[in-house]
Structure formats: structure tokens, C-alpha cells
């Protein structure tokens, strides 16, 4: 249930502009309605994105949270290298190939 609650908390923050802005300013009361473990709450408060990945945040939700809190390329530069091979129940639902190096342009 806690994995779901963590994801619910993240969704709750980024879809609401006021809550996002409050969270950006360090107001952690926006997390109060959610039954999070200490690990989950601390990862959110510390904006520890690799930890949030390891705690099974849905990849799209995690990226959305980064988009509203961090500069555009921050996630690719600071999170993607640290989640290589780290299990995530949403990401691992379907099998994946290894990363390829081709770029579209």
C-alpha cells in the first residue's frame, strides 16, 4: 500500500500549482495527508530522486515531479545515471532492452 501512497503523494503535489510552489519553498505540510514511511517522506523532503526511484515511484510521475522542481535537463544529468539497473516495480512491469546509444538527431 505504501508504494501506492508515495505515488499518490507525488501526483497530488505536481498537478496542483499551489501545492507545488509550497513544496518548492520547503513547506512539507503538503505531504501530511499521506501515510508515508520515514524513508519515503525523507526521500521526498530531501528531493532524493534516485531514492524515490528505488522506492518504486512511477517513472513518469517521478519525471513530472522533477520537471516542476528542477531545471529541464537536471533529471537526465543527475538521476538517469544513478538509476541504471535499479529495480522499480512500474518500470519492470514489462521487459526492457539495454540502453542504446543512438540519438534521433
Amino acid at each position: 500500500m505504501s508504494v501506492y501512497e508515495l505515488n499518490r503523494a507525488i501526483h497530488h503535489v505536481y498537478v496542483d500549482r499551489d501545492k507545488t510552489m509550497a513544496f518548492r519553498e520547503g513547506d512539507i505540510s503538503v505531504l501530511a495527508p499521506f501515510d508515508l514511511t520515514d524513508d519515503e517522506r525523507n526521500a521526498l523532503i530531501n528531493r532524493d530522486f534516485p531514492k524515490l526511484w528505488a522506492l518504486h515511484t512511477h517513472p513518469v510521475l517521478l519525471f513530472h515531479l522533477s520537471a516542476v522542481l528542477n531545471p529541464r535537463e537536471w533529471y537526465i544529468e543527475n538521476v538517469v545515471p544513478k538509476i541504471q539497473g535499479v529495480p522499480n516495480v512500474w518500470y519492470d512491469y514489462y521487459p526492457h532492452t539495454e540502453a542504446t546509444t543512438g540519438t534521433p538527431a
Partner: protein
Amino acid sequence: MAKIVSVVASTHNPRIFWNRDQADKNDLEALYTAFADVRKMLAETKPDMIVAVANDHLDNFFLDNMPTFSVGIAPTAEGPFWYESEIMFLPSYKANVQLDFAEYLLRAGVEQGIQFSQVREFKIDHAFTVPLSFVRPEEDIPVVPVMTNAFGYPIATNQRWYELGQFIRRSIEAWPGNQRVAVIGSFNLTVEVGGPKMGKYNMDFTRWIIEQMKEGNRDQILKTLTVPRLIEEGNSTAEFLNYVTVLGVVEEAKPTFIQHKPVKGVGMCPVVFWDMQ
């Protein structure tokens, strides 16, 4: 009876806007030209209703209640969400909903086995606003928004998405009016969002998909591009399934127009048009 006069399948790559500052100017200009061409071709078919199919990005829907397909039933369709416009600079769009057709589509779908839900409080996210703002910026044609699920696993098989397209075509052709209808499907090619392969692409796979699209190889696409196979190449590649729904509308017709040149600094931005007159 109503008639499908044109079909558009378009990227909704948000980086067309979000990454505009680092996009190759010539590539971006070529993309804008392609969108302008499609806008003109669409206008020439004189549609008076648009059925738009696009996947929600965990904006309207969350994991507690994730409809496979849903019909938006409200007086207007307006978007995108705050962070899409304020942070990603994505275009806004507001149009009336063709309510009578939306209600008809919902009922017919539910009664004929389509996995429809109804949604009456919604916004249209960038999967709708990006294509619509390029191909019909006038916001003057009523839309029927059909929202799809490409992110909340499990995802319906590609056959279900294809059948959705067939159902949309049949429903339009059975609609007792004389409307001229355009269908717009919003999709992307190989892409990963938030996962460890983000920013990396399997270009051989992407090029293969584009070849099948150019040739109208419906059967090859349905046989090869299953949900697991798509997601194997990127967790958001299931967005291509909206193109599969478009194939259910056009069947094996080859596109009248296709632009698939990547935009350096942005990524793949395919735009496809079928003149159905």
C-alpha cells in the same frame, strides 16, 4: 450519414516547445512547414467536427482509476495543465465539445464492447494541445476528445487499440448527420520518460517503424509492435498505440503526406496526413 474527410497522426513531443532554445533552427523550420502543410490540407477537407485521440500523461487520471479509453463529455475541452504551460511552454487550446456525438460515441462504444469510461471533469493535456494548436489553431471546430491509457500498466493489447479505431470509423459513418469529420491521433515514436534509457533511442527500430508507416503496413505493425515489444524500446513508446488506433480508421491506406525528419535538440516529430475524400 457523416463522413470521414481527413485523418491526421501527429507527434505531441513536448520538447518542440520546451527545448525550442536548443533546437536546430533549420530542422525546426522544416517541422513548422510540415505542420503548416498539414494545417492547409486539413482545412481543404472542410471538417466541421474533430474526433481527437490522445493518451493522458497521468494528469487527468491516476493509478486509482485508470480508464483504458474514455470519452470527454463537457461543454468545452481546454488545456493543458498548469505545469505544461508554465514550465514547458506548451500551447493552450480551447474548443467546444461536440456533445451529441460524444454521448453517442460513448453509448455505442459501451454497448459494442469498447472499454470506454466517461469523464466529465477534465482538461486536455499536451497530447491534445500540441497537435491541435498546430493543425487547427483557430479553435473553431468542435472536438470529441477520446483519452487513452499508455502509462498505467497493464495496457490494452494493440488489437484493442486497432479495434477502437475501427469502431470510431464505423460510428462516424453511422452518425445520422451530414458532418464532415476529421480524426486526429496523437502519438510518439520510440521514447523513454523518467527511466534509465531516457535520452537514448534505438534508431534502427524507429526507422523500421517509419518504413511501415510510410507503406501502410498495417498487418506488419499489428504483428510486430505488441505492447511488450513497444515498451521494450522505451517505457513511453506505448504512445505509438494511438497511431494503431488511427490505422483502425484508415486501414491499409498509405498516407497522403508524411514528415519524419528528426529535429536536432528536440527528437522525433512525425506528422502524417490522409486525405479521405
